[in-house]
């Protein structure tokens, strides 16, 4: 199986307020179609790692590969493009542009990518909303929908450019068990049927147990 994401000896320090070695020699791989979860105590560095893996944070040591290509050291313009095309990110807090409609929120990354025509983009966006069972709220303002709906809109947005990997930082953290279950099933389906890789930080043991592999973190290190 092809490797989609690889971290090699990633180290990160926070220099303020005191020098703090937050990530220590993190190395692992995620293969195509694999559903991986990351678990660990609060404050062990999971979010920090995810920001590095998603190319938003460039202040680290070590190497990061995406699709077997080195992305460490690329310029910001290129990194933006990589995030846009290859990585979908789902936050714990549903991050949507509140003044835009649900549909527009989902379409925005595709419009930025500019590989499809506007009508194709709209069609694709509606398709993703349908997969997530929320096509009926497509025209609603993003600020006027429920938290669970927002989370699913964020997932639809992460999917719009057909990325190779989806990263989530506690994507079910704010959802009730029914909606959490629902999101898990969506992820599972995407990884099984569409060959999408997933890397999800979670505190939910039941959720993690159902994934292909669990990465245990403690104090900035991988412990299992």
């Amino acid at each position, binding site marked *: 199986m092809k490797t989609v994401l690889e971290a090699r000896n990633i180290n990160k320090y926070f220099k303020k307020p005191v020098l703090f070695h937050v990530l220590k020699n993190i190395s692992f791989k995620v293969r195509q179609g694999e559903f991986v979860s990351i678990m660990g105590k609060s404050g062990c560095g999971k*979010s920090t790692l995810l*920001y590095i893996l*998603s190319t*938003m*944070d460039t202040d680290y040591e070590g190497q990061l590969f995406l699709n077997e290509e080195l992305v460490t050291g690329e310029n*910001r*313009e290129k990194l*933006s*493009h990589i*995030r*846009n*095309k290859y990585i979908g*990110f789902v*936050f*714990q*807090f549903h*991050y*949507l*542009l*509140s*003044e*835009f409609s649900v549909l527009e929120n989902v379409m*925005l*990354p595709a*419009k*930025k*990518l*500019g590989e499809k025509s506007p009508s194709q983009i709209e069609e694709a966006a509606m398709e993703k909303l349908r997969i997530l069972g929320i096509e009926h709220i497509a025209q609603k303002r993003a600020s006027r929908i429920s938290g669970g709906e927002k989370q699913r809109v964020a997932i639809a*947005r992460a999917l719009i*450019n057909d990325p190779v990997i989806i990263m989530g930082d506690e994507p079910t953290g704010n959802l009730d068990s029914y909606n959490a279950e629902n999101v898990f099933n969506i992820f599972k389906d995407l990884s099984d049927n569409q060959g999408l890789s997933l890397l999800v930080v979670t505190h939910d043991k039941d959720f993690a147990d159902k994934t292909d592999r669990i990465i245990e973190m403690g104090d900035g290190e991988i412990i299992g």
Partner: protein
Amino acid sequence: MINWKVILNIAKTHLLTKIKQTAIAALGVTFGIGSYITLVSFMTGLNKMLDDLILNQTPHVHIYNEIEPSKKQPIAFYEEFKNSFNVVHSIKPKQSQKKIHNALPIIDYLEKNEHVRGALPQIKTQIFYIAGSIEIGGNLTGIDIMQEVEFFNFKDYVVKGTPEALKNTNNGILLGSGIAEKMSLGIGDRVQISTISGEIFPLKIVGLYQSGIADLDNIQSFANIKTVQRILGEAENYITDINVKLHTIEDALPLAQKIEQQFQLKAIDINTANAQFETGSNIRNLITYAVSITLLIVAGFGIYNILNMLIYEKMNDIAILKATGFSGKDVQLIFMSQAVIIGIVGGILGLILGFILSSVIDNVPFETEALPLIKTYPINFDFFYYMVGISFAMVSTFFAGYLPSQKAKKIDPVDIIRSQ
């Protein structure tokens, strides 16, 4: 690759959802540009009016015979004193006549020059106006009235009567309005004038002349060239001045120099004669621009503030956009386009406001003794100033938007996401 459609769409949505702030920022620009247009139209209108007042009646080149001491005194012709130091006391002007020798051939010659629109003969002479026991000193100028009308807008200064009446009346005179008032004379009356040598002639008043410059109107009158020649007892080729009007004012200096050389006459070009005039116009322009720039800077700070505020409110949006693949440059362009849109909309409204205000001023009555021609405040509707205005609006909003947008460009999405 910049996807303008997406960027402008986001910019538009931001502006529309914050319509109040947008409107305030745009109104600042509108106010600045509107005042600029109004001020500059009014000021340049005023300048132009004052310029016209002088320049229309001023020939581009004025040719006459200056009474001045000979540059080469007789002693310089003596070979014997060539190497000695000569002192000449009490130099007197050379016995010379005011008459331009060969005036008519010179006029013919000038009119053949392609730069020249017209060369007009004049006779200037000192006279006294006599009404009963009053005797007032003054100037009488003999002119070719119809040509003066054609080339020097003379008609504008004939406030009563018509130029044609002078042309058709043999012993007619266009009396200066100041004198007419002093002597209680009007059209149809007769005025006695006396030459320096003492002869007295009655002339019929066919009109009143008013230049708007009181000192001039108190002494100056006009008559036909022939009339003046007859009064002075001179022949038909007696001409004291030639006024030249050119196609372009820039040719005035070279032509004047050429004439001085060629004919040994005094030739003054308009720029030399009215150098002090430019200074006044320049200072008025300076004030106009100083005020307008101040207004625009204030408007610029308004935009700067509002964009800063907007960016602060939109931190989350910026983080989301960056996390989903928009580059720092894209985000910067989103906010820059907001500034420029505010600039364009506010600027265009400002042009309209300026146009309306100056139209209103243009219709406000403004009547003054000094300016017989002017009925309303002068406004200069020059399209050029509208171009300057809109460019100004865009440049100033561009700079006002630049710093905040630069800040937005540098925002680190991780910081924002973490702080949730």
